[in-house]
Each structure stands twice: as C-alpha cells, then as structure tokens.
C-alpha cells in the first residue's frame, strides 16, 4: 500500500482515475434508480439463509468465545426463520487455507460469509469474488483491504493504542521509564495499536521507552519476556501493554520477582482483571468485544433482508477503570478462566450501531 501510494506510474494513475470515474458514475446511477441495498447484495437470495463463518484460527480462547456469540446469534435467527445453517471452518492460522475455505464456501453457494482475516491483503481477491456472486460478506476484527464487502465491523485499533498511552502518561505525570508490550510482529492489529500510541508518546518526551516486546497474545510468553526484562532493568515506572493476556503475564512476572507493581494498561482478559483487583493495581483496560461476531452475523442477515447497512460499522471501545471493574468481575464466573469478560449486548445495541452513519 505504501509503495502504491508513493509511486504510481502516470498511466496507472490515469487508469485508476478513469475506473474511479466510471465507478462513481455507476454508483450515482444505481443510487438514482432506486434501492438502498447494501454492498454485494443483489436481492436474489431468500431466507432462510446459510451462513459461513470463515475463522482463521479457532484455538485461542478469544476466538472460542467469539464463535460462541456467533452460534448464539445464529440460534436466535434460526428461531426467527432467517437462518437455516451455519458452516464453520478453521484455517489453523494459515491464510492460504482460509482462501481455500472461502473459495469452498463460494462453491457451496452460501448466502453470507462472516470472516476474520488471516492477513489484511491475502483474502482481497477471493472476497471480491464472493461479493460478485451476491454473497453478503461481513468482515470483523481483523480487516481486509478491499472495499468489496457488505460491511466491515471493528473497533479502532489506533484509538486503542492512543487511549492506553494517554492513560499511562497521565498516571506517570508524563515522565518515567516504560516498557511497551506488543502482539506479534507483522500483524496489522498489533501494528495499528502501536502506531496509535506513538503520537501520545511523541507528545510526552518525558516518557522513555526502555524496550519493546513482541509476543503472541498469551500470558506465558509475555511473562517470560517480562521476566528477563526485569532482571535487566532495575527501574521501570510503567508498562504499556497493548492487548490480550500480555498484561496478566507482566503482572505475574513482577509478582514472581517480588517487584513492586507499576501502572499498567491492558485488555478485558479475566486473568488480568482479577489480578488487577487482587493486587490493587493502578490499571486501565479496554476490549475487543467478542460480540463483534454476533453483530456480524446480524448485519449480514439484515443486509440480505434488503436493509441498508453502513459499509463500516465503528464500534466504540468500552473502557474498564476502577469505577467499572466491579461490574465486570461480578460476571466473571460466566466466562472461562483464561477468557475475556466482554460487555453486555443485545439486539437494541446492534440496531443502534447499524443505524449510525
């Protein structure tokens, strides 16, 4: 994308403009003629629908919980006579396999595809093929590049990073030595959260980044990484942890080494929230709500039913702080021990989110 923007050849640029102009014309035409149908929808598919859920990797707890919200939503829609079947695939972390699965869903002529992308670019072509076939494609959490989808649904990763950095900076009065914990390298989500934090860090030159880690979004590797950093750095004033169970790993590392806990950011991992309460941490957390999955299925069905849905549904980030954490922990036993305590959701919330422009 970067090189594409910096260096388009003249002919390419003119061709792009030409096709953009044609697309605009078509858009104006279709908008003028009638229907406010959502993207990809041709109106030739009738309820009850078959929904395909193309997962990139089903093993992480976050994914299992998300699949739970999808299955629950499908059950509701089945009762309403809108959905007849849910097909689930698991690409086992392989973007190439995910392409193959989505191709199979096209071949099986499903009516809707709900997808978390294994790579922001790799699925572009197969997803636009699905869109061309009139399949409602709703993409959430990890987004694709192409706009040939019915809707994309996500929180803002950049705000995630900025919010976390802002809180930590306020806690430390704008100065101190901090460690930044990131998710895996080369993954858009972890990259976006980190990029979102950067302007805040730049604005607070008193914050000195000792070092950064890149690990899977799991407690164990994060704890291991933090443990070795604790040996090397006698003075750490704060931890800017950007997600998953990284924060829990960090807190446990501090605890094991007998170090005094420092202000730390994080996500709604049950483990982290419980440690936060137990150790009386100075903490801040947000979340990637698991019900994005349920919302995606709901959105796809709404679009198939002829409703207009926004091309991008931005879901506001819920924030957990000392004033709200008790409400989350009160429901903790309904969630797996290594799971995420997500905020409540219902159809009214979904309708409100889909109504926003």
């Amino acid at each position, binding site marked *: 994308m970067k090189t594409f923007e910096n260096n388009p050849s003249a002919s390419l640029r003119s061709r792009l403009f030409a096709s953009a102009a044609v697309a605009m014309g078509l858009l104006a035409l279709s908008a003028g003629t009638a229907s406010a149908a959502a993207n990809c929808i041709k109106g030739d598919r009738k309820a009850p629908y078959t929904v395909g859920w193309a997962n990139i990797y089903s093993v992480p707890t976050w994914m299992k919980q998300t699949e739970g919200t999808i299955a629950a939503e499908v059950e509701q829609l089945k009762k309403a006579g809108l959905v007849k079947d849910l097909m*689930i695939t698991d690409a086992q972390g392989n973007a*190439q*396999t995910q392409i193959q699965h989505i191709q*199979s869903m096209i071949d099986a002529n499903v009516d809707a595809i709900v997808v978390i992308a294994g790579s922001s*670019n790799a699925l*572009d072509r197969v997803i636009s093929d699905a869109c061309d076939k009139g399949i409602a494609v709703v993409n959430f959490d990890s987004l694709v590049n192409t706009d040939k989808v019915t809707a994309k649904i996500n929180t803002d990763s950049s705000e995630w990073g900025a919010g976390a950095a802002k809180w930590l900076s306020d806690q430390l009065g704008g100065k101190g030595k901090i460690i930044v914990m990131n998710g895996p*390298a*080369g*993954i858009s989500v972890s990259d976006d959260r980190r990029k979102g934090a950067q302007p805040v860090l730049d604005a607070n030159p008193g914050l000195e980044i000792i070092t950064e880690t890149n690990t899977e979004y799991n407690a164990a590797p994060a704890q291991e990484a933090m443990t070795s950093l604790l040996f090397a750095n006698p003075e750490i004033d704060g931890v800017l942890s950007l997600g998953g169970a990284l924060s829990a790993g960090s807190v446990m590392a501090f605890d094991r080494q007998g170090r005094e806990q420092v202000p730390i950011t994080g996500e709604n991992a049950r483990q982290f929230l419980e440690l936060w309460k137990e150790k009386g941490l100075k903490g801040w957390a947000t979340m990637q709500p698991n019900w994005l999955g349920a919302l995606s299925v709901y959105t796809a069905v709404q679009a198939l039913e002829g409703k207009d849905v926004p091309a991008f549904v931005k879901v506001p980030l819920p924030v957990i702080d000392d004033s709200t954490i008790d409400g989350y922990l009160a429901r903790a036993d309904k969630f797996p021990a290594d799971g995420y305590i997500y905020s409540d959701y219902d159809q009214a919330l979904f309708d409100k989110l889909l109504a926003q422009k």
Partner: protein
Amino acid sequence: MSAVSSSSWLYGAIQRRRNRGLGGLYLIVAAFLILYAVLFPGILSVGGFSKFTQNWFPLALVTMAQALLMLNGGITLAIGPLVSLGAVIAATTMDGVFGVPGGIVAVALTGLAIGAVIGAIVAHLRLPAIIVTLAGSFIITGVALILLPRPGGFIPGWLSNTLAGHTPVAFLLLVVVLVAWKAFLATPLGLGIYAAGDNPVGAFRSGVPVERAKVVAFALSGLLAALAGLFVAAQTGSGDPVIGTPFTLNSIAAAVLGGVGFLGGKGTMRGAICGSLLLSVMINVMFFLGFPPVAQYIAQGLIIVGAVAVPELLKAWRAKR
C-alpha cells in the same frame, strides 16, 4: 510419466518397486478426488478446476522444494520464510522501473542466491542442514519484515488474473515444472542429487561432485520456494511478510506423506506431489462433508496416519502372499 527411455530390465524393476510402494497413496488420493467431485461437481468445470489447482499449486511447489533436499539427504526449515520473502519482493518490486519481468527476475535470483549460500555453508562447512536452515529462516523472516513491515505492496491486476484467474494457468505451470524436473533428472547433475543422497561415498567414488550437487539442490529448492511466494503474491494481489510460515511444516508433511524418507535417496517426486495433493484436497473434502473444525483436526491426523500406514500394510500383505 515414464519419461525414462533406458528400459534396461534392471532399471525397470527398480522403478516398479518404487511405484508399488506408492500404490496405496495413489488409491487414497484418487478416492478423495472422486469424493470431492461427487460432493462438488463444479470442480469438473474449467473455473472450478482452476480455483482448486491454484490453491494447491504453491503447496506443490514448496513440496518439490522440500523433497528435492530430502532426496539429497538434507532438509530445510527455511521454506516458509522464503515463500514470504518471495511474496514480499514480488510485491515491492513490480511497481519499479523494471516492472513485472524485473520483479520475477528479482524473486528468482533471490531464491537461487539464498539457496546457494545455505547450500554452500552446509556442503563446505559440513554443518547440519537443519541447523543452518533454522538460522537462515530467522534471518530471512527478519529481512522480509524489514522490506515490508506489514501486509501491502503492489501486484498488477492483470498478473493476478493471469496466474490466478479463471483459467488453469497454475496447473499448466506445474506441469511445466514437473517436465523440467524430469529433464533435469536425465542430466548427470540431476542424477547426482539422488546418488549423493542415497550413498554419498559411493557417489563420490563414481565421480559425482557431491558438494556441488548439494549446493545445486539447495539453490533449486530456494528458487522453487521463492517462486511459490511469487505465486502467492499474485494469488492474493499483495505481499505479506509472514504468509509463508505454515508452508515449512506442510512441505515436510506432504513429502513424507509421499514416501520421501528423511535419510536421503528414498522416495520419488511424483509421490511427494501426490502427498501435497492429498493435503490440499483433504481440506475441501472435509469442508463439503460439513465437518466441524474440531473434527477436522482429528480427521486430518487420521488421514495422514492412514495414508502412511496403508502402503505399509499393503506391503506386508503382499509379502505374506
């Protein structure tokens, strides 16, 4: 497939023995293909066939890259990173001055060069291939992440549509690669790769340049892996610095499934290709059978064990008879 013209009875007998071991695998693959065609008749159309073979093609290439080294008595853990690097180079060079041809040449040369360097280290410094390629895989991953820190880059639309559109170009390319491999096997150097894997001392005494054969094997393997990356970039329309990772293990699985041994000299390229086809068709068949993901993990394991066990059982049954 019998391109070998020297039909002396000795060679014929050896070939028959090698093929017989693969009979069970051929049966299983054929059964899966038929099952797939029954579940999804669209596979028999040009479009369906094209899409299916496109998803198989990169795995077939990396399996060849892996089998080539295993036949030579080596192994490589750098396949996945090389695929990623090939994709990244393709996606970052094709909008340059030299365009698509420049990009293809850059990918091919990178693959050849990295393979040759790894091969030279393994052959001349006598270090274990598994360690050298493991170290290499870290370096190559790092370079790919530096060149393209996150998915992106540019592949011209026409290239994507040519290689991975609704025509079976990918399959034809695979046929070309296989024919080239057959032709290469007919050369002394090609035979030397097998010979040096089977019995290095014997090969050396018969005048095979064992070290050079090893370097060539690694270079060709690197070339195939990088080209698989180029194809992945075209198929997806972009580069991704970590997209290749799962190919390392899958290439080994496909080669072993195809009867290629870890100790060198044992196995055939056609077996390895069949192994990769099984891994690929299995995914689609399980989808159309409607297996839930957890069952897919288990079924996948059972199919792989079965595909290795059935030929062995057949052998035992034949020996008893």
